[in-house]
């Protein structure tokens, strides 16, 4: 999937997250989370998994997490990617 413009998904409510994606020359992921100490490794793993699944190789992906569960992380990233992708342009 090619990120051609900015895409946002999610909310700042507890147990949710906001995902911001924008075009970039390389792949860069930034994670900020209320539970980074306890779950940073699992959030990172989930982000990597979703990016691989969607063939994202370039772009700036930024997560502001308020303690979302894995399925919410996956759904929010996929939505943000779709909103930023060429298919929707």
């Amino acid at each position, binding site marked *: 999937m090619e990120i051609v413009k900015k895409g946002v998904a999610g909310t700042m409510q507890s147990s949710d997250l906001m995902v911001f994606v924008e075009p970039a020359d390389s792949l860069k992921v930034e994670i900020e989370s209320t*539970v980074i100490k*306890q779950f940073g490794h699992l959030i990172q793993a989930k982000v990597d998994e979703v990016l691989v699944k969607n063939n994202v190789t370039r772009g700036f992906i930024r997560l502001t997490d308020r303690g979302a*569960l894995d399925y919410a992380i996956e759904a929010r990233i996929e939505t943000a990617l779709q909103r930023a992708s060429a298919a929707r342009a």
Partner: protein
Amino acid sequence: MAKNSLGREIPETFNGKSYIPYTDPHSIKPEAFHFQRASRVLKRNYSGASKVVGGLREAIVASGLKDGMTISTHHHLRNGDRLLNDLVREIDALGIRDIRIASSSVHIVHAELIPYIRKGVITALECGVNGPIGEQISRGELACPIIVRSHGGRARSVISGEVPIDVAFLAAPCCDEYGNFNGFYGPSACGSLGYALVDAQYARKVVAVTDNLVPFPALPIGVAQNIVDIVATVDSLGDPKKIVSSTTKLTKDPMGLLIAKYAATVIDASGYLKNGFSFQTGTGGISLAVAGHVRDMMRERRIKGSFGCGGITGFFVDMLDEGLFEGLFDVQCFDLKAVESIGRNRKHQEMSAGLYANPFNMGAVVNRLDCAILSATEIDVNFNVNVNTESSGLLLHNTGGHCDVANGAKVSIIVCPSIRGRLPMVRDEVTTITTPGETVGVVITERGIAVNDHLPELKAELIRRRAPVKDIRALRDEIYAVTGAPKPVEFTDKVVGLIEYLDGTIIDTVRTVRA
């Protein structure tokens, strides 16, 4: 370092004093500490003249407060309190340093004290705190040794003289010039003065601070003239509207309602819901929803309860007015309806923190409790409960009456959602032990009910009623399957605080979080 019976490492000394590690809920006796009742010098005042000395500054001077002394205030105005901040500002202005604070609690509004801690005006906290002070201490950003005590534990520490209060500055919402006061009336009325009653008896000097000086005598008397040394007047003690800190409405959240329904089932199955029933809840939305179920069952079955207890809310006031309880024991009013009630209804009894929950006397009110609803920040598979630190390791909350009530009540019921912002609430280990699992009867989440081994009959009855009873380890596994297993937070070896159990033994410590 010595390990206590729950496996927590406890330093032998802290801030120059030695402590006994926690062993079990009931066997420690006052003799273990060589405690007696604190003695106070007798005084003679043959003058009938007014004790009003002026404002706060004049009162501090008149009290003889010096470097190194201990002061106290009460927290009945909760986050609306102005007195402690104003007091410390004046103490600083007078150049007094190295003051120990032994207030009944400290709230978010008291974050204003942080610069005075940095400056050395305040050098120790003999009480738990809510909010930024504890957070900064546990981050290692603020140096100030802290001992977290429950309401009953604090009363014990003052009554035994373990924490000798040199000067108690007691907010007195309705006060006369000779020092009689109550909390019932006036612009800063806070209702019960339960925590202050202990300080008034045991502080070396008692200062009544009022924004409402009434003609002599201020009746009814909560604290009497014969133990009040000084009266000070101020513009305002604070804002009683800010007494209400959490929601006082029944929760509408379906998960909370489910937990409340399970809790009602547990109370019904306990066998105590009959004439003479006694009950305590907190102020949270789930607690009130449980109270709603209990009220409905009592109405339906024409049950006359014995007493409601604790911090009292308008909900309990309505139950008293409806005749569902003989009376209420009120250590602090949690809303203005409770404040209004305690001023008019003799069956709404003001209760000192000592009567409420001090373990070292001939029987605290918590001993007479049948069922109590308590909250939790975390619970472990041994039923130990944490309410002091968050899962991030930061010290953000005071104990309140948590371990006192669990210790006294026949069935203590912990209500808690299974997950908060990805954090599993039932875990292998809690970050900090506030309340030992031996005193916890039941843990309820929306995923099911875990019953501790010391209540086999209740467990059997719940299973008979087809309630969703689960082993606490199975509950943990179910939750971990959704959240993932959390990595433990890393701490340094630096102990910055102690968590004291109500009997004075040390149940856990607070260490600084590794950045």
